[in-house]
């Protein structure tokens, strides 16, 4: 018998640094964000620390500000499915989570891509279902951006239903491959499906046999009421921005209540906030380090750009080292920036600007400092022991089930965490020292899938 594990387990994951100002490309320690070696290094660091999964975000059009490509952050990323399939070849256990949009894709294609990825990784695939829908992004696609905002979750829900129907269309033992008897299939014409609803009218045969996990683990990352309902109804995990203890508790309580309403167990969905971190020998040093990173993340030019995104105005004349704008934000659809989920997520521009002004006044911050302090997502700052305590406190008080760590450096940024905090969590018995299971569902402690009893009807 191994030791019992009375304590609630922490779920840890690693987000490959993205195309926003969290990623500090100007640091001498920063490497390529596109060469495969960077992905390999990052994934292998996360796997060596026995993380649950690796996470990749995606945006399908390069961001613009004032009608020009945004050039201050990292720009450029690989195709999500392709890089995850390649990473399956250089890792063995770690989950592979890809962000894939439900507006600019079709269920048949996405279902065969996830089913294929799940086969090729022996059951480690996960899908973060995002619903970005704008016409700006649509210009890159033959279908265009035809979806109204109010339809995005209807399409997402029906898209996910369709993918589930497709991957469930092959029964578990459809491939018998009995060479002596000359029988490859248990039954002729496997994979039959018919889907007919307000979004899709498709029928035929799915062409990928059932994969090790049956279907990918489902993540959701929207924050609206509709997005939360979608998660509570259908997801296995949520990628959230609610990273403070109080906001996390409120968010998690909200999700658990919704789960109950949808007839699911209260712990059926893992809540995983994204967070950056700063770790040093002492808490004081860590706070100093964190402040330095915040300033690296917000150069003077970046400060103006981020302020413009909130104010929805041209602020190019402003001095980044001077005071905040003395005008109010222009409320409504952004006319300044395009291609950013974060811009659409600020629904309370006036209130947010008010909070920024109050903070600036209280601390005597200039614009750049205010942007750096108010925009940051450094929820884990301190010595290794302090950070380990924080993580345990968050999880024990149901602010979340764990964290998706977003280092500010590619590709080595995880190391500061994995070499110091992970051993402490392992000692305390709240983080695994070896993978117990082989699939991502198992790493996340999700209940086994209900096997499809028969064919789903639409």
């Amino acid at each position, binding site marked *: 018998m191994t030791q019992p594990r009375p304590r609630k387990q922490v779920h840890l994951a690693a987000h490959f640094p993205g195309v926003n100002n969290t990623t500090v*490309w*100007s640091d001498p320690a920063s490497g390529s964000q*596109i*060469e*495969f070696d960077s992905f*390999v290094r990052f994934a292998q660091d996360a796997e060596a620390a026995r993380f649950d999964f690796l996470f990749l975000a995606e*945006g*399908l*059009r*390069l961001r613009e500000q004032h009608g020009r*490509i945004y*050039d*201050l*952050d*990292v*720009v*450029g*990323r*690989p*195709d999500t*499915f*392709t890089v995850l*399939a*390649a990473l399956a*070849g*250089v890792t063995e256990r770690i989950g592979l989570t890809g962000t894939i949009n439900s507006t600019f*894709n*079709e269920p*048949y*294609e996405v279902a*065969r891509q996830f089913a*294929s990825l799940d*086969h*090729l*990784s*022996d059951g480690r695939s996960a899908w973060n279902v995002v619903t970005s829908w704008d016409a700006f992004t649509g*210009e*890159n*696609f*033959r*279908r265009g951006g035809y979806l109204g905002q109010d339809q995005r979750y209807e399409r997402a829900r029906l898209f996910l239903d369709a993918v589930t129907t497709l991957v469930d269309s092959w029964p578990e033992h459809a*491939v018998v*491959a009995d*060479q002596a008897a*000359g*029988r*490859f*299939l248990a*039954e*002729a*014409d496997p994979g039959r499906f018919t889907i007919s609803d307000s979004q899709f009218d*498709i*029928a*035929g*045969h799915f*062409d*990928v*046999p059932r994969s090790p996990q049956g279907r990918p683990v489902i993540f959701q990352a929207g924050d609206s009421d509709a997005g939360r309902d979608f998660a509570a109804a259908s997801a296995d995990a949520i990628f959230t921005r609610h990273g403070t203890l109080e906001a996390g508790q409120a968010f998690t309580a909200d999700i658990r209540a919704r789960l109950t309403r949808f007839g699911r167990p209260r712990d059926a969905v893992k809540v995983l906030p994204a967070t950056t971190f700063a770790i040093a020998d002492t808490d004081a040093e860590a706070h100093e380090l964190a402040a330095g990173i915040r300033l690296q993340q917000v150069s003077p*030019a*970046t400060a103006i750009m981020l302020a413009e995104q909130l104010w929805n105005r041209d602020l190019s004349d402003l001095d980044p080292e001077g005071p905040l704008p003395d005008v109010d934000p222009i409320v409504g659809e952004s006319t300044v920036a395009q291609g950013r989920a974060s811009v659409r997520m600020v629904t309370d521009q006036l209130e947010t600007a008010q909070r920024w002004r109050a903070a600036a006044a209280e601390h005597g911050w200039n614009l750049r400092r205010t942007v750096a302090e108010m925009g940051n997502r450094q929820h884990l700052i301190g010595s290794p022991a302090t950070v380990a305590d924080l993580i345990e406190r968050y999880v024990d008080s149901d602010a979340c089930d764990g964290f998706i760590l977003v280092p500010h450096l590619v590709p080595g940024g995880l190391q500061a965490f994995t070499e110091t905090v992970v051993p402490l969590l392992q000692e305390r018995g709240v983080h695994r020292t070896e993978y117990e299971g082989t699939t991502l569902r198992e790493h996340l402690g999700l209940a086994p899938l209900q096997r499809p009893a028969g064919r789903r009807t639409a």
Partner: protein
Amino acid sequence: MPTTGRVVCRMDDGTHGQRQRLPMLLGIALDGAGWHAAAWREPGVVADRLFSAGHWVDLARRADAAGFEFLTLEDGLGLQAQPWNAVAGRTDRVAGRLDAALVAARIAPVTSRIGLVPATSVTHTEPFHLSKSIATLDFVSRGRAGWRPQVSPRPAEAAHFGRRTMAAELTDAAVTELLDEAGDAVEVVRRLWDSWEDDAEIRDVATGRFIDRDRLHCVDFEGRFFSVRGPSITPRPPQGQPVVLALAHARVDGRSPSSLVPRSDDSSAAVRFAVRSADVVAITPADAVQLRELLDLVAQESAAAGRTAPLRVVADLVVLLDGPDGEPAAERRARLDAADGSPLVSDAAIMAGSAAELTDRLTQWWGSGVDGFRLRPAVLPDDLDTLARSVLPELARRGLRTDPAPGTLRDHLGLARPENRYRSTVDEGVPA
């Protein structure tokens, strides 16, 4: 004329006298358990592992070690083993397939030299997604990506997407229309590969700029079938332009899993697509006479299209060799045919014989001026192993080819890394 480092052979090829040629190019076409419908029943095949990474890694490593310049992976957007426009209703053949582009990505890190050429449909898919997918394959393989665009004329596949319908009868006009659309798709994909200049990433700490956005370009494609704005979200891949291979069938019946143009007995529409869009064209001559006719057709269409860039021509051959235990090819073929209940048929010529006979055939055909071959093994890995053991070494001994040195797929094919079509010329020579 080769334009990059690949060794050039100087040799007497019989018909053209002394001239400089590339070594004979060899590709291996991977699909399921092989190209014979009964292949999966052979003892050397682990039939219940066809959908596992291990199956593909094993085959890819064998092909890589054998020295093939490239491997191809078949794909489709529906079940294979169905006759044209109908459902097979059989349980004794392999059905189901993994996404070829993802299989290629999965094997990229565990192979070292071999080019990786997945097939994908351009009929029901987004050029934007395809472009970044193949560009990323080029990144993860360090410059070994290729791509075989194919059209999906089957009504059953169209019904999987529900965005358009396909006529049950495939007319020549419909084929031409699909290939025109494919040409536009390849054009968009290629423009997107070029939409970042190679030196667009500047990381200029002084100005805080990560990229020079003047070196990123909208592709602004507007065609008859769709429009795409760009630029890509993925930087220009290592090869600049990954290698595009087009299969131009002479004649296809509905059973071929690689059907580009089902039931068209005229290959010129497909050849026209290939000479406009591809770097490599695969043809399917039935015999030496047809081989010369098709080479002439490719040359004519290239000239008519005003093509100046090199186009490599490879001939497809289904190869069914003597068995691993010495069973003569003819008997092996008869046994496999009996197991399946119907004779092996293909759009490509079927070469059933000994390794020596195949080697002679390749040597002869190569003498007609074809640049190389894409071999479709009847049984995997058995026929692949025989090729590796007995055919490739003999071709090398005859001085017809050498194994490729480490490098990109373009290097293997003697194709230079192309200039970027959007490269700004204004600041040429001016220090950045």
